[in-house]
């Protein structure tokens, strides 16, 4: 199963990268872009035929390594049999 994990900073946590990119966009004339936040998107293949199980495994991976749950939230999407 292909799984997509999106990891974003929790609301309220400073995102200096997002801020710098927002400024740079404005400098290039894209003044219409605001509230830029930058997260991670991790794609991986989980060796399982069962979508529910793949999602469960992915959640475990997030908790133990992929996400820093002190400052980050994550969402999991099981895309398709790979």
């Amino acid at each position: 199963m292909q799984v997509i994990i999106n990891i974003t900073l929790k609301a309220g946590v400073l995102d200096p990268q997002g801020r710098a990119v927002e400024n740079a966009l404005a400098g290039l004339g894209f003044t219409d872009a605001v509230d830029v936040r930058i997260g991670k998107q991790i794609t991986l293949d989980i060796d399982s035929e069962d979508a529910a199980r793949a999602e469960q495994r992915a959640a475990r991976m997030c908790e133990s390594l992929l996400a820093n749950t002190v400052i980050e939230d994550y969402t999991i999407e099981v895309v398709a049999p790979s």
Partner: protein
Amino acid sequence: MNEIQEMSFADAEAMGLSFDEWQLILKRLDRTPNLCELGIFSAMWSEHCSYKSSKKWLKTLPTEGPQVIQGPGENAGVVDIGDGLAVVFKIESHNHPSFIEPYQGAATGVGGILRDVFTMGARPVALLNALRFGDIDHEKTKHLLSGVVAGIGGYGNCIGIPTVGGEVNFHSSYNGNILVNAMAVGLAHSDRIFYSAATGAGNPVIYVGAKTGRDGIHGATMASAEFSDETESKRPTVQVGDPFTGKLLMEACLELMAADAVLSIQDMGAAGLTSSSVEMASKGRLGMEIDLDLVPVREAGMSAYEIMLSESQERMLMVIKPEQAETARAIFEKWDLDFMPIGQVTDTQRLVLLKDGKTACDIPLAPLVDDAPEYDRPYRADEMQPVLATAQLAADSDITDCLRQLLGSAELASRRWVYEQYDSDVMADTIFGPGGDAALVRVHGTEKGLAITVDCTPRYVDADPFEGGRQAVCEAYRNISASGARALAVTNNLNFGNPEKQDIMAQLVGAVSGMGAACRILNTPVVSGNVSLYNETDGMAIQPCPVIGMVGLIDNWARAVGCGLTAAGQILYVIGQDAGTDDGWLGCSLYARQLAGREGGAPPPANPDAERKHGDLLRCAIEGGMIAAAHDISDGGLLVALAEMVMAGQAGAEIVTPDCDTLHGWAFGEDQARYIVAVTDAGAFEALCSEQNVACARLGTTISKCELTAAPAAPISKEQLKSWHEPRLAALMSQ
């Protein structure tokens, strides 16, 4: 909680205030405080900001000397280094935040200490750190170590200040409370130091730097409490460091100071806008009025309480000359930073805060600072530990095998895995970076060099706080002296458990007394420092860790010597050891812990008078050009020190060990006030020793083959030594 609603003792207690403290607030205000006011009292009276448990003892430290321009009480200490220049430095802990989020905790620790230094008008030129982790095999250690190291590098590398030294230790007492202490050193013109006391009623108060968010609200109170599962839920939003903004802020502030626009300036560290505004106003014996609606915020709807207690990073508060306001604004615009007049200095001696057109806080400043509680906490020392003889401790293995085990132990193994993640060369003035004794950094564009080190041996302090406190100062002094520099002054970071416990308080009292005693004799006054208490988890306290950061000066950096052996044909001596010595102090040593499985026992007595004499001799010999390499003897004793000199150098060493039952004591004992030196002119050196009446034992010679021979044991090649020494940390971290 409603902002203007009146508070009760239950609210105060939840913020960490005692009943007596609550009563005192009621009395001073003559009314009940609101939430914002109570929050301000709670932060200012927290252990972290008020030093209520340690103040009585900190006052006993020597803080004066002809070299001292500014001692404790400002953002950082300032010491004269001649020719109109001054060195500015301080150390600070970020223990609790680093345990919760190691990367950001350590990064913001570095950012915070850098701000303390450039707030004084100094350009930071070096960073160091002192780290303590739990047992190396503990499940959390790997995660914490990798996060902390990456965080320190993440901030320091990006802002472009070299991280030139530090120390890392592992012990199970830190399993639940790691220590992350960061030290910053800067350079300034001695007649252009900036202070925090506000001046001139009517002058504008300016907020600069990053915007305020809800980060780390009440971090100062957090840092003043023990850990438990409950803390988990009280966890504030983690502060996130932004070294990029930190760099811009540093450049903008230094540019503004050069433009002569700043009257007083204070960084926003622990307790953010609260402590900065209170300190500036109270130090100037003035008042301050701030319109919180003008504070640049990151999130909408922040309350007065949140704005005042936020610990968002990369912010400063300053009072500027009114006529320079436009110059100042232009500088901050150039650096793309917020610049906002948010209030003014008043002569009311009160802190007045406005929010949404209403008064959110109106309190007298004096009680916040002058009435901050000061405790004379009771203490009772543990019993003295017995002195252990070599025969009680010696392991069965031969000395080569002991050396192998010691060099490969978590305590002594090479720290390369750590320091290669730090940019130690940026600014291009690093002469000696990490991996030797003191770091040596050139004073840019001059012949002067600053020698810098951080040191503490917690197992000694644990066994005997007074001896341990003295020893930390002595070891730092030895590291400075080994490079050829003369020690100038110290900063210190007192890391202890819960001071409400009598045995912990006794550790604090003992260690501070020992530190003070050694500093007096070595002429190294304490110019700054930091205290971190309540380092306990579920009642288990850390090994006490009073870290000493010491700075020394060498007039010509080109004359400094390193610890690596340079060439064959030199004579090796041990300064501070009698020729006939064939035993050593193994009690409380690393050897006893690692090889005999024995912790405790009386530590080797420190001897500051001898340190001073031996340090003076070594400086004299280095100045006289007789010394090619020098290394102090500390953890692991003589043979470990010699092995380190071989590993760091381009030549080998050949010595003969004494034929006796106490060989392990001789090889691995940790007797103090000793150095190994490689001497180019033995006659002159011996004459100097007898003239200065310093014992020195001839140990052997340097040889061209890169190996260590301690006859009758077989030679050990440098590659072999390195194969024991190098891989431990890297192997652990790549598991």
